[in-house]
């Protein structure tokens, strides 16, 4: 069965799915949707796929799915044989979903600021930036103490989960929304770790990280 991603290259939410599918080595087709400037996500044909008028949309055979967090969960539960990306444990499921919700908050702040500055959306830039800084502060604190307690990722397992993928893109693209990460050193170190996940792929605006020192 073929997987099709309705995709906009510059969308962090679409990138989340490309990232996980790349890591899971899934084959998929891409249907480019001209989000900007074409506003094709508001076109009739697209609204028939997703009445919410939002990217990304994923089709897996007869199934049509929307919302990046929901699709990440679906892909991990269906295709990740290791069970690591969305672990079955109830407490960890709650943790992962908690961070999926944070990812949505990051979208409504950091991504909104980026849309305003880079795509001429009529949003309150300063409010969006303030909101992003508030979230980044919390994340930095969470990750900083994580490092002290031997935890490298957002959730408690000793490996990354879909929570890390969900939060990563708009943290990484925050500078495009005028949100510096200088005050969040632990957050910056976490982005290095995410970028070192085997089979990690980049998008424009997201650079690869150098090799860690032990590898090779």
């Amino acid at each position, binding site marked *: 069965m073929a997987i099709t991603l309705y995709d906009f290259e510059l969308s962090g939410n679409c990138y989340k799915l490309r990232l996980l599918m790349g890591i899971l080595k899934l084959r998929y087709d891409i249907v480019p949707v001209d989000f900007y400037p074409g506003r094709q996500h508001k076109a009739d044909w697209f609204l028939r796929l997703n009445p919410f008028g939002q990217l990304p949309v994923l089709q897996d055979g007869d199934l049509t799915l929307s919302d990046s967090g929901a699709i990440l969960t679906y892909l991990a539960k269906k295709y990740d044989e290791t069970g690591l990306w969305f672990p079955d444990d109830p407490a960890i499921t709650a943790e992962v979903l908690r961070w999926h919700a944070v990812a949505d908050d990051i979208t409504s702040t950091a991504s909104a600021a980026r849309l305003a500055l880079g795509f001429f959306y009529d949003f309150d830039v300063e409010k969006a930036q303030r909101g992003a800084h508030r979230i980044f502060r919390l994340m930095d*604190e969470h990750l900083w103490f994580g490092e*002290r307690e031997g935890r490298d990722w957002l959730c408690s397992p000793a490996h990354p989960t879909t929570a890390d993928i969900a939060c990563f893109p708009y943290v990484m693209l925050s500078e495009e929304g005028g949100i510096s990460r*200088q005050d969040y050193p632990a957050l910056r*170190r976490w982005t290095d770790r995410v970028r070192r996940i085997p089979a990690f792929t980049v998008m424009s605006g997201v650079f690869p990280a*150098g*090799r*860690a*020192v032990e590898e*090779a």
Partner: protein
Amino acid sequence: MTLSLSDPTWYPIASSEDLPFRHVYQGQLLGRELAVWRADDGNVNVWENRCLHRGVRLSIGINEGGELKCQYHGWRYANRSAGCTYIPAHPADAPARRIQNRTYPVREAYGLIWSAANDQQAFRPFAGAEGHDWFALRPVPVNAAPEDVLAALGGLAPDDQPADLLPGLAVRFGGIYYFVQPVDAGRAVIRGLLREQPVDAVATLRHYNELLSKLRDRLERSAARKPAPEPLQPAYDKVSADLATMPDIAIPKGNTITVMVKRKWVSADGVIGFELAGRDGHLPTFQPGAHIDLHLPNGMTRQYSITNGPGELMSYIIGVKQESASKGGSKVLVETVREGDLLSISEPRNNFPLRRDAIRTVLIAGGIGITPLLSMARFLDKSALPYELHYFTRAGETVAFRSELEALHGKVIFHTGLPRAEIGTAIATALGQWSMAQHVYVCGPGPMLETVRDTAAAQGWPDESIHFEYFKNDKIIDNSSAFDVELARSAMTLHVPSGKSIMEVMREAGLTVPSSCEQGACGTCLTTVIEGEVDHQDVYLNDSEKRANSCMMTCVSRAKSARLVLDI
């Protein structure tokens, strides 16, 4: 108190823990943005956060362990010196000399990284610093004026234990020290140190983190009610014009550096290793494949390749072949120079530039020729670029720098004691058929270079993809011709009689002419030819360069025509 851009005080700018290997930390002090990174040798670099090329932030660059690579255009800067080692798309794949990023002084102490806006003041420990096992708290950035932050921290002191204000925006009470890092006029970072390791580290960190977060929230609320202070405006030095221009290949002899022989050892049968250390601090940046001229006690000068990897600038390591029959330079070096002796060396120069945009790189070394190739292999290794290193040694000869070679992650193949005929086949196999963006680098005895050049040519390798370096010109120089040289820029015409080189004649006429080997091997005296037909006798230029007739070595080359016009 107003902050000054030129304040020479040392302030903490990061915690030691902020700098794991292969990470680049983004810091700021007195308005200046900093890229702070730890190299694999443990050294901490504090640089202006700006690639000289386009001003892109280096804190988004890649820390490769010995060099920092700018992510946008691939410029690289070396550990310690911040010297540029690579400019992509540059015709020679080499930077102009002495392009250096701006560096700031640095000291790692008490769990913190300290720096200053300039190096007018030596680092001094704060009062009471010595003799304790310091414990660093979680740094807390605050959007408020540094002086307000300092005052608020002083207010944390218990009534019966008033706070002690220390120089450098610091305050102390009981066993706790707070330092305020002046990030900018309206921004600061609180960095706390405890005098002892706490029993429960995480609980202690959480306790102080909560305390300082509350303080931060209060400070930010009151800062929001005041007019925001004007941010500091650091001026950036203009990028010099020679960044955009081609470096001169001819480097005047001159600047020498005194180095101390730190270590002398037998690296292999017949190969002596020398470690030459700078007397204070690091030595200049070098590129892979570069060599130094070593001035020997008997007045001779010899070239030796630097074997070091990227960013290893505390000392240069060279390998010297001990030839029993030789009366030349190596003999003096091997027999009379001892550990602790001082020697003069030139700045490193590179006639053997390594391309880092190749899809496949083949390195072929014969005997002592391993030295420049070891350096190249180390650079490629650190950058995770693919390469194969073939090292040919004669029967009875042992492998020099074996442990260094074995520490590499790429493909290193030892060919030991092969009969002559088999060397040819081994080289042919190592090279394979040429295809786009493959490069081969060879260093070894003359016959081996010839074999590689011929084999490569036969297997479709173009001249531009074959790179070699001669330290010695084995050819017999025919200096029987006589002709005139017209020196276009000096407006002078000289007659070169048989038996004399152009260089000698020019020197007799009072001109200063740079040279090093004086036998057509090093390229130092490379000169542009404007008119006339050159009789090349050097081994520096390749065949197509020779055919182009546009440059020559004045130390050995002569004229086939009656007159040569040189751009001198």
